[in-house]
């Protein structure tokens, strides 16, 4: 492609879908049909990327691919902006959508609309993108495309006859879909005459080249060697390289209005770049920045402590590495009286936490003890100030607090009609308020709840999966903080309060929760050489006690010459078992115990 493409022939779009509904397969098929990659490359693509990662320590997310496509005798530039990371991440989905004029909403023909489909559709609508409904996997025997089309019309208001029926796997209908992308999705607005403004919608760290910014040029243009300014950060840089992903990085001299590509400008760390910031020309800056994104709000927090204090520096290094490529993950040193030195980590949500956890274990061989995830609270203090706290341990004295506000979410659950009763009972027991019920079809129903995040943060998803035999899906979105009658439950282990086991709960079920909680703890903490009292205190008053009995007899009776090797192995295992535990005074608390406090099952 030489020179700048006519803006009228540029299409910027995303594919949004529930996990496993075929987003990646559709993307691969499009890359193939447009000749961007060969069929063979499509298969090898993932592997190649991983090899590069391994060999050179580079991670390049091909999350914005430029394709050339001829339609009706016209050359089009199609920029497919993939949603990087996990599709569950609203924030990442929404920032990708902001760089697009259109979105393909993919729904599996046999599974129908799922909670994530809906959440993604709302995001697309909010971002003003034109949405095309796509029903995928229509070639499967279990496909019910008519039914799914009706659901789409009913829930999303996209006319059922306008939905595209495709099989991304076989390629059926994908050509027609590409044609529709050219015909039905709008081109970018022509603002080539205005001062340069480019939206940074993602960023990536490369060990050799520093930060690679993924940008969408909204007005004006970007050129190599141009001096630019990050409007939010107020910092200036010089562009050293511009390019497009095809899908490998291919340098260009210039990126024009409406185009999508990457910018490299000697930016050292991800911390220097705020995704959502606007790039403008340093000499002729635009008067206003583009409307960025709200910075991702960390809603879930959890403490990570090294199993052994000597591993603290290793844990710190591991977090440093993780944070390098994930700007939405944060960690701050934390010193707990009971657990020693560790880190308090903030996550966008539970899934995000699980991903970080997994990477920590897989990529860094560090034994960690993690505390139960908690949500963030907002406090209105007597002196009129408002304060955010990320941990029950930060709660100041009760007399200083006017009110405690907890985060609420809009919770959507889609399930089958036969599990309605079970799900509604569960939701009610978790203080969720039903806002709306909608029948998607005679057998599928959608609930819209207003729910306290704290109540759904731990095992709620597993429980609705259980109730619905794996069918139900859920998604949630933060709506705001609201005051509630909340109290703090403290746990004393062997007469010592352990903040990491504290919880903030609603007063109505605080006592019941407290009692249940120490029963769980009694089962989760192994016996010791001495008796361990467990106590629950609410507002400083002890309301319940359990006792972990001491070992009374645990000794090998016979240990002679022939028994040594075997016995040493047994003792080593016994010692090994203590490794993933955290010492609180002389009590060893295993990882499961910290999590068990959120387990509300009987």
């Amino acid at each position, binding site marked *: 492609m030489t020179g700048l493409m006519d803006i009228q022939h540029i299409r910027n779009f995303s594919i949004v879908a529930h996990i496993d509904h075929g987003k990646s397969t559709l993307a691969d098929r499009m890359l193939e049909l447009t000749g961007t990659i060969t069929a063979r490359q499509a298969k090898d693509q993932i592997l190649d990327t991983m090899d590069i990662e391994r060999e050179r320590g580079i991670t390049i997310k091909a999350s914005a691919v430029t394709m050339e496509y001829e339609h009706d005798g016209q050359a089009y530039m199609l920029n497919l902006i993939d949603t990087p990371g996990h599709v569950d991440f609203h924030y990442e989905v929404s920032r990708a959508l902001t760089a697009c004029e259109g979105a393909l909403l993919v729904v599996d023909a046999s599974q129908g609309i799922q909670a994530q489909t809906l959440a993604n559709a709302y995001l697309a609508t909010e971002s003003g993108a034109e949405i095309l409904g796509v029903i995928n996997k229509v070639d499967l025997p279990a496909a019910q495309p008519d039914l799914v089309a009706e659901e789409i019309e009913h829930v999303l208001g996209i006319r059922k006859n306008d939905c595209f029926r495709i099989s991304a796997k076989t390629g059926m209908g994908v050509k027609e879909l590409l044609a529709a992308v050219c015909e039905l999705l709008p081109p970018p607005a022509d603002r080539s005459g205005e001062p340069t403004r480019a939206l940074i919608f993602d960023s990536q760290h490369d060990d050799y080249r520093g930060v690679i910014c993924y940008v969408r040029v909204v007005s004006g243009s970007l050129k190599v060697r141009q001096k630019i300014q990050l409007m939010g950060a107020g910092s200036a840089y010089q562009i050293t390289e511009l390019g497009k992903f095809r899908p490998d990085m291919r340098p260009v001299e210039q990126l024009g209005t409406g185009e999508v590509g990457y910018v490299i400008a000697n930016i050292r760390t991800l911390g220097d770049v705020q995704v959502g910031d606007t790039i403008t020309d340093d000499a002729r800056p635009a008067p206003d920045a583009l409307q960025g994104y709200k910075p991702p709000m960390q809603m879930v927090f959890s403490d990570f402590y090294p199993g*052994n204090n000597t591993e603290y520096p290793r844990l710190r290094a591991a977090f440093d590495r993780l944070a390098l490529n994930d700007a939405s993950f944060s960690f701050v040193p934390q010193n707990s009286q009971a657990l020693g030195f560790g880190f308090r980590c903030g996550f966008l949500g539970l899934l995000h936490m699980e991903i970080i956890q997994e990477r920590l274990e897989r990529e860094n061989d560090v034994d960690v003890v993690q505390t139960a995830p908690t949500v963030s609270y907002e406090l209105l203090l007597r002196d009129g100030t408002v304060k955010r706290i990320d941990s029950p341990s930060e709660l100041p004295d009760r007399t200083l607090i006017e009110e405690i506000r907890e985060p609420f979410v809009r919770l959507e659950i889609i399930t089958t009609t036969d599990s309605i009763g079970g799900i509604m009972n569960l939701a009610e027991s978790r203080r969720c308020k039903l806002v709306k019920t909608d029948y998607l079809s005679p057998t599928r129903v959608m609930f819209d709840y207003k729910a306290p995040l704290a109540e759904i943060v731990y095992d709620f998803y597993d429980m609705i999966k259980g109730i619905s035999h794996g069918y139900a899906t859920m998604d949630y979105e933060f709506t705001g903080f609201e005051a509630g009658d909340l109290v703090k439950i403290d746990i004393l282990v062997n007469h010592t309060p352990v903040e990491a086991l504290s919880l903030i709960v609603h007063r109505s079920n605080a006592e019941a929760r407290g009692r249940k909680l120490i029963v769980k703890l009694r089962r989760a903490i192994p016996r010791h*050489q001495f008796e361990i009292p467990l106590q629950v205190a609410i507002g400083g008053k002890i309301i319940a006690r359990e006792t972990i009995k001491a070992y009374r007899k645990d*000794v090998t*009776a016979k240990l002679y010459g022939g028994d040594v090797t075997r016995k040493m192995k047994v003792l080593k295992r016994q*010692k090994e078992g203590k490794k993933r535990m955290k010492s609180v005074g*002389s009590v060893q608390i295993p990882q499961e115990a910290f999590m068990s406090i959120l387990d509300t099952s009987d």
Partner: protein
Amino acid sequence: MPSKSHLDPLEDVMAGVALGLSQGGVPTKAGWAEAAGLYVHVPLCRSKCRYCGFYSVPVAGRDTGRLVAGLLRELDRCDGVGFSTAYIGGGSPTALPADQLIGLVRRIHERCPGVEEFTVECNPGQVGLGLLEGLRRAGVNRLSFGAQSFRAAELQRLGRGHCVEDITRSVELARWAGFGSVGLDLIFAIPGSTLADWQCSMESALDLNVQHVSAYSLSFEAGTAFEALRDAGRLRAVDEELDRAMYEWAVARLQRAGFEQYEISNFAEPGFECRHNLGYWANRPFLGIGPGAASSWCGNRTLNDPDIERYLTAVESGSEVPGEVQPVSSDDMICETAVLNLRMRAGIDLAEFERRTGHDAMRTFAEPIQRYRALGLIEVTDRAVRLTAQARPIADTVLCDFAALE
């Protein structure tokens, strides 16, 4: 009644000295210059006890003469090794015909003149005066009887082949034969038994005026009938509290009777400790001969093939006895020494530990020592580290922290 001098264990030691035999350090072919133990395993039993996890096969139909010859062939290879203690165990050594067992002892004694303590494990009811006198004359100076219980119902439950009277008579015969060092093994916490049952057994044992008592809490060993019955829900292990009560009662009772608890499960009148077993807990080297016998020698722990036929074929053809050889890393050696030492009342002798391992136990195990000291489970003197009385019933929960280095 035997003369007083026959009851004096020192007599044998003195006899050895008089013959000009070395006492402590014994030069060996491996260049090992310290007292080593010799263990001879006789893997034969008249019948299998239902709780026993040791390796043994029925004696009936076996060519026991060939086995004894085989054991001696294996011993031949240890020519030049000096042993200070010998122990024939099993299985049931007394399942061998009397003349063969006596012959085995005699040959070992001839070959290992430095042996100062020579023990043979005996099954009550499987010993006559002739056998015992023969053993005594051949060089045995210590007997250990597998009494297990003085309650008929318990003996039956355990599947023992003897009755209560067999124990009493056997111990009396041993005394007649001139043995002045006799020990009894007892088992407590037998499924279904009460504290009173245990007290009865212990009192009966003390009535026999033995010098040594081993009191073992019954454990469910892998592959035993007891284990299968427990797993099938047909046998229930005694309650942990009762197990502990039985143990503590025994410790107190034996102490009153003048026995010192010199190891978790072993009690002796002063001077009658089993030196051979003390060698295990000191982590001194020992050689085991016979099918299924274990050795600890030159930095390896080895286990002979338990299959009698394969074992005999190998020794008879002059080839290496098949089995497992496991090198003990220096870390493992340090840990083994600590764990084994701590089972003894004397604990870790700090100077001896450093001499044996090259490490300072106080520094190597600083963390667990400090932690358990604070909990009153370990006591430290300027010469030793040892478990407290409070720690012994739950010793494994403490010892596991000495089983591996950080």
